[in-house]
């Protein structure tokens, strides 16, 4: 099964479970979790079921397209369900079956793996899912996001698309993976991998990036003070990506690093709080709709 069909299969499966199919969010980010469709929507009492593919940028993992397992940008298929359904493990296993993975022919296990990102005030408990010894999915029950307790709890399922595809297509090198008929990952991503790696490690303008960080940070705070969560959050994401670029370049000294992480953390906590307050002002509209719906 090529990657395109894998994505279509997963979309169909989760759409049938009542998930809204979203598109990737258009701001750079390091993981699907940082999309506002996850980070913000996991906050507060409103229900939320969504699935989307998220291209995720990890500047420090860039390898000029030379390493068979590491990428500057990989793809995650992200599912969020809130509140977490009682049969979520079964729903997940059904998705594997839809991808042609018969649990009876393999060894599938749920191995403890907890997720913590203190810089975003996030914590969750769950597993990595092993398929014949390979980690193919992160499965997490969010307990805290942006320093706020999650009530109800969301469950997050993150498939590593390239990982899973390398198993399904039995390929050793990520660039040999077939995206669709006649197109491999190499065809589509090799050049950007090389260029982004070169940019990250060699040609980026550090002074500009430092300036941008400050500008983005200031704008994020200013928009939060206006109660405009989403514009503010875009700038939070930009801060985070800019920091990652600088960090991968080795441009941030020891003492500065702590300071930058603290600044990102403050932003994340503030934006989480602002989002909650703004939704509250609106009367948690999705919650209300749902309740009205159930009365009929």
């Amino acid at each position, binding site marked *: 099964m090529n990657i395109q069909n894998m994505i279509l299969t997963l979309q169909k499966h989760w759409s049938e479970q009542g998930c809204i199919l979203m598109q990737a969010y258009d701001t750079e980010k390091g993981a699907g979790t940082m999309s506002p469709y996850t980070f913000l929507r996991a906050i507060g009492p409103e229900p939320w079921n969504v699935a989307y593919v998220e291209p995720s940028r990890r500047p420090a993992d860039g390898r000029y397209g030379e390493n068979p397992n590491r990428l500057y940008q990989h793809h995650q298929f992200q599912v969020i369900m809130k509140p977490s359904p009682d049969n979520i493990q079964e729903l997940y296993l059904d998705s594997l079956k839809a991808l042609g993975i018969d*649990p009876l022919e*393999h060894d599938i296990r*749920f191995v403890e793996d907890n997720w913590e990102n203190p810089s975003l005030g996030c914590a969750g408990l769950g597993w990595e899912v092993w398929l014949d*010894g390979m980690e193919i999915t992160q499965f997490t029950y969010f307990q805290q996001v942006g320093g706020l307790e999650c009530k109800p709890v969301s469950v997050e399922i993150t498939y590593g698309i390239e990982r899973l595809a390398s198993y399904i297509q039995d390929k050793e090198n990520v660039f040999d993976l077939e995206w669709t008929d006649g197109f491999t990952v190499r065809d589509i991503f090799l050049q950007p991998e090389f260029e982004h790696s070169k940019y990250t490690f060699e040609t980026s303008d550090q002074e500009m990036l430092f300036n941008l960080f400050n500008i983005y940070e200031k704008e994020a705070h200013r928009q939060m003070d206006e109660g405009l969560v989403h514009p503010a959050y875009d700038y939070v994401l930009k801060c985070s990506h800019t920091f990652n670029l600088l960090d991968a370049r080795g441009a941030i*000294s020891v003492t500065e690093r702590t300071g930058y992480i603290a600044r990102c953390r403050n932003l994340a906590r503030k934006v989480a709080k602002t989002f909650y307050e703004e939704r509250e002002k609106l009367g948690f509209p999705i919650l209300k709709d749902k309740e009205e719906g159930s009365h009929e």
Partner: protein
Amino acid sequence: MNKKDLLLEIGLEEMPARFVTNSMNQLSDKVKSWLLEKKISFDEISAFSSPRRLAVLVTGVDTAQEDINEEAKGPAKKIALTDNGEWSKAAVGFSRGQGASVEDIFFKEINGVEYAHVSKFIKGKETAALLPELQQIVTSLSFPKNMRWANQELRFIRPIKWLMALFGNEVIPFAITNVHTSNLTRGHRFLGEEIVINNPSDYEKALLAQYVITNPQERKSAILSQLEKIEEEKDWVIPVDEDLLEEVNNLVEYPTALYGQFEEEYLELPEEVLITSMKEHQRYFPVKSKEGRLLPYFVTVRNGSHEHLEKVAKGNEKVLRARLSDAAFFYREDQKTEIAASLEKLKNIVYHEEIGTLAEKVDRVRQLASKLSENLHFSDEAKAVTDRAAEISKFDLVSHMVYEFPELQGFMGEKYALQKGEKEAVARAINEHYMPRNAEDKTPASNAGAVLSIAEKLDTIVSSFAIGIIPSGSQDPYALRRQATGVIQTLLAKNWDLKLEELIALSSETVLNSKIGKKSKSELMQELVSFFKLRIKYLLQEKTVRYDLIEAVLGSEIGSVPSLVKRAEVLESHKDAAGFKESIEALSRVINIASKAEVKGDIDSSLFENDYEKSLFNKYLSVNEELRKEVAEEAAFNLLISLKPEIDQYFEHTMVMDENQEIRSNRLHQMANLADVIKKFANMNEIIVK
């Protein structure tokens, strides 16, 4: 008496393997103490667990609580009856309080006094009526990490999926979160089905038919015998790491061991790298030849049956191959980096925000190690080895390999240092300076390794204390206790007569000179000395030295750790000997009276008034001279108790607190000087003699 079997099973989403066994034991302990508390008799209790279930089966549970027949004791007879022989208010109140009336009162003598009593009979309740209380037992289970899910308030190890609770063939009704009890359980996630259990005693068998081995011991034996079978078939040796076996056992409900292989070329990687890749990351058992050589195979335990094993093996091989090819890449890359370049990078790595960089830590450790090798009179060559090892002790921390496999710190340092032409002793010390790595690990064998290990651990402890990271209760995130024990064990193993207070002082000075924390040296020293004393106390307790003897040797300064431990052992070995009590009493008497001396001073023999003062003085001089010759602890003890006759004679004929001030203070000086000599061995007055 009617009996039934009781079965309780909590079905869960996969629990963390490391918590399964303890959680299972906790559940069965709680059920057991509940039954005892409720006075419900039973025959036997057994516990079961798998990644998805915790269960307890109790056989022969009485269908009712024991009846209670007891006598309640009330007021004394003279209070229960008024002067004219009528029942007093106290008696009426007592009997009413017991649900009886005054007619039920009888008298019974206790220690010669008659008291009012009434007989009470409480009929035991039906067990079935009490069993819904199991609900609280389940919700009261505590786990090291808890979570919430969906809309539930309960914090639990993982979401509860089903609850099976049976008393005989009846379901015990209760619910937790939105899950209600039933007689249904679930088999293996893929191979089994949901089934009804009609009788608690069917539990194990019924689930086995659904591909779940519920008894963890049986599951473990199954894994072991499968490993043995592979060993026999392939002529291999599969060394079994107990911790790995325990973890693997709690990752599967129905184990099937299988093997796979990897390319021979990867055997060129250091053995530790291969083993760590297999064990830590993949939970595989490495395979060796009968001669102990690592072979290009691995064994894994699948959660499933024998079907499609080749497919599972092939998948696992692919994963391991990717990991090993990564490792091989890191290994090659690391060899391109010079040690000096790695040391440069340490300047950019924060060890702790308030403590500074790794490079700064290495620098402090190096200073401390150099002072230690000076104090231990190392040869110039040994000093040079220690210093170089200290300087490059952390260079491997910035290697790709240690970044990927943090548990290989030190091992990789040794390997890489050798490859880069460092002396063997230097390379070895880099590895050894992390020892003892855990409670079971050995202490460093080489002198350079031992000095470095002590210096590194001391620096960690002292700098942490300096910024207020001090272990308390169950809180010891930096494992400072284990490191302190490591320092003590290393000093003991090397039999190094270094004064611990001096070591702590040296380390404190380097730490404070680096401007870490805001404490004064004396405050820091005080906290550290009592921290180390407590570690030594635990060590002596483990050696089963009696409590008061430990207090006695720890009474004053710690000094040399090997000597302190030997003194404790000498006391322990003599404590039941004839004359021990009398000798200790004599020595304690000196210490006790010496505490009255306000100032210390020399003894003026011209002020002696009797021969006993003189003979004790002479004895003191000769004993003291012998003790200065660094005699063994056993000999020192014998010298001290040889003072006994002179001490006894002295006290029999001498009044220390003489009216004449000059004589009195001279006598106190004599006592104080003698007490000092005794206390160097132990505060004998702390020893309990009866």
